[in-house]
């Protein structure tokens, strides 16, 4: 059990959960408004690339972050337009965005920066060190020196919960995802609310991507998200389409990954250890979490007979 007592394990849990929790909460916004979003992977890549590229060009990681999110927002707005206005199949669109984003970021990386990527001196976001935690070595080991985005992520979890469940706009977004026709007859603009949900989702997914490229690392690499957007999709469902649930599921994934790394010291096949997050998820899902029911109108384009 010395493995579990090592604060590094929990540090890694939090660090690995962040790039899952952000897109998972983003996806929660999108799906709560009724738009199935499996484009998180692609939008993360976009966010990751443009965050580091603009960090380099503007020489400011914060500006880079802003532009990275902005580009994620732009891509998700286009996605939203096709999904909402053109009532296109949302799953297909999501896959299209993923393929497109993977190609675009790879192409831009090669043509703009060359195969070795952005220079090593590209600025990245600061880490947070809380001196007053010093007295508690374990907590200090878990929380100190995490990227500032880890803290921002925790704030986002709380704000998202408040936003979805305690504000007027949140109520409206949820109602549109449950029954757009009813929301329409209540005088809400279904399309506007869905745009809102999808674009918030895009911003958060891009933030998750930026966490990878300028949060814990200093460069972009082709396909550097490595399927985290898809895991985030699972975390979103696992978390029953709530911010705290998505965060909890992300923590589980982060923990299992970190544990898998830690346990590699014990001479077990790394391929078998790599199964740990997935096995744990299935067990947790089957044993504890139970049924997760999506928003009733999730994935169904709202087509008015106008």
């Amino acid at each position, binding site marked *: 059990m010395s493995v579990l007592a090592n604060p590094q394990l929990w540090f890694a849990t939090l660090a690995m959960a962040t790039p899952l929790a952000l897109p998972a909460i983003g996806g929660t916004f999108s799906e709560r408004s009724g738009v199935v979003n499996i484009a998180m992977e692609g939008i993360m890549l976009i966010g990751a690339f443009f965050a580091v590229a603009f960090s380099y060009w503007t020489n400011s990681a914060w500006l880079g972050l802003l532009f990275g999110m902005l580009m994620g927002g732009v891509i998700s707005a286009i996605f939203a337009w096709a999904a909402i206005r053109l009532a296109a*199949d949302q799953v297909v*669109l999501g896959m299209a965005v993923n393929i497109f984003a993977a190609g675009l970021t*790879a192409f831009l990386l090669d043509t703009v920066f060359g195969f070795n990527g952005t220079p090593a001196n590209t600025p990245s976001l600061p880490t947070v060190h809380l001196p007053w935690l010093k007295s508690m070595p374990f907590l200090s080991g878990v929380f100190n020196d995490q990227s500032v985005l880890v803290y921002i992520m925790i704030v986002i979890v709380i704000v998202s919960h408040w936003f979805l469940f305690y504000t007027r706009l949140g109520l409206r977004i949820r109602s549109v995802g449950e029954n757009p026709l009813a929301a329409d007859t209540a005088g809400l*603009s279904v399309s506007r609310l869905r745009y809102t949900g999808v674009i918030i989702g895009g911003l958060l997914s891009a933030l998750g991507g930026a966490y990878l490229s300028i949060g814990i690392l200093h460069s972009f690499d082709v396909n550097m998200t490595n399927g985290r957007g898809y895991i985030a999709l699972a975390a979103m469902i696992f978390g029953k389409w709530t911010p705290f649930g998505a965060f909890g599921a992300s923590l589980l994934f982060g923990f299992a990954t970190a544990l898998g790394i830690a346990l590699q010291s014990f001479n077990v096949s790394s391929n078998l250890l790599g199964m740990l997050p997935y*096995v744990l998820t*299935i067990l947790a899902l089957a044993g504890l979490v139970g049924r997760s029911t999506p928003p009733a109108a999730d994935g169904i384009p709202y087509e008015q007979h106008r």
Partner: protein
Amino acid sequence: MKSVWRAIGTPVLASLIAIIIGGIIAAAIGYNPLQVYGSLISGAFGGAIPLGNTLAGSVPLILAGLGIAVAFRAGLFNIGAEGQYWIATVAAVWIGYHFKGMPGFLHLIFMLVVAMVVGGLWGGIIPGLLKAYRGAHEVITTMMLSYIGILFAQYCIEPGGPMLEKGYQPQSPAVAQNAWLGSIIPNSQLTWGFAIAIVAAVVVWWILFHTTFGFQLRAVGSNQFAARYAGMNVPLYTVLALGFSGVLAGLAGAVQMLSQDHRLTQSFSSGYGYTAIVVALLARNNPFGVILAGIFFSALSTGSQNMQLVSGIPQSLTDVLTGLIIFFVAAERLIPMALTWYRRRKSGRLQVSLPEGGRTDG
């Protein structure tokens, strides 16, 4: 005639738009769009060998795509065809080299059947049971089992792994050669696996639309409440539909092994399971549409390789183009919408527009 046009015309037009936009992009970067597309088409269809390779590449997409379409028809999203493919492949390969000296034809059937059973268990029965009795969402379970399946296949041929063959290469022994699927077009990769894919599409179509099994599967998929009231066993059909889906993904793996790879190697990034999702959806989950969509995507893939060779376009740019094409095919409404807009603009110039009351948003 009109319905045929509606079914085929819009996707074709949409692809054209994507192709034109892609051409503009290519030209802007400095490539000759005509050469780009010429090389794409000739790489995919220009001659017996490219055509054979395109058709060969479509086989796993068609088979896995059929599986995903079946699940969608039952209202279920099987996102884990990739892992079902690999776990079934492991089983088929093991059967293929472990039982030596069987008559080739029987051995072949044996492998296909085992792969289908394993794929069905992995993709269907486990997630199906978890969904039906524990409420676990199939997107998560199929995805997680997919990762586990891929890791298991990797484990089989890692150093010290149970299926590792002695030698420099980290790979399994090859399946008995007399069981390999024979080639249709010499020097191309096309084997009788393509025929299996076509037959599978016909069988799936027939099962979905002409049997009581398919009837119940679709009823459960469209409205499980009405299906319940009609006495159908919804949990059972959840399990069966996912199982059927996994069977087809498993078949895809076995056929690919018997046609192309013949053994487990370290190439675990086929991506067939993901592309097949797009294939199924673009085909509107119609089995015959899956054949066309499978060939279409395979052509994009084989053609893009030739495109790199002839026009020097990097692989990443062909991904951009592929993404655009999928996007526009999905957004097929763009065309009627653009037409309406165009007509309105034309007629708007003739008439003085009326003042509108109370209009706030569109």
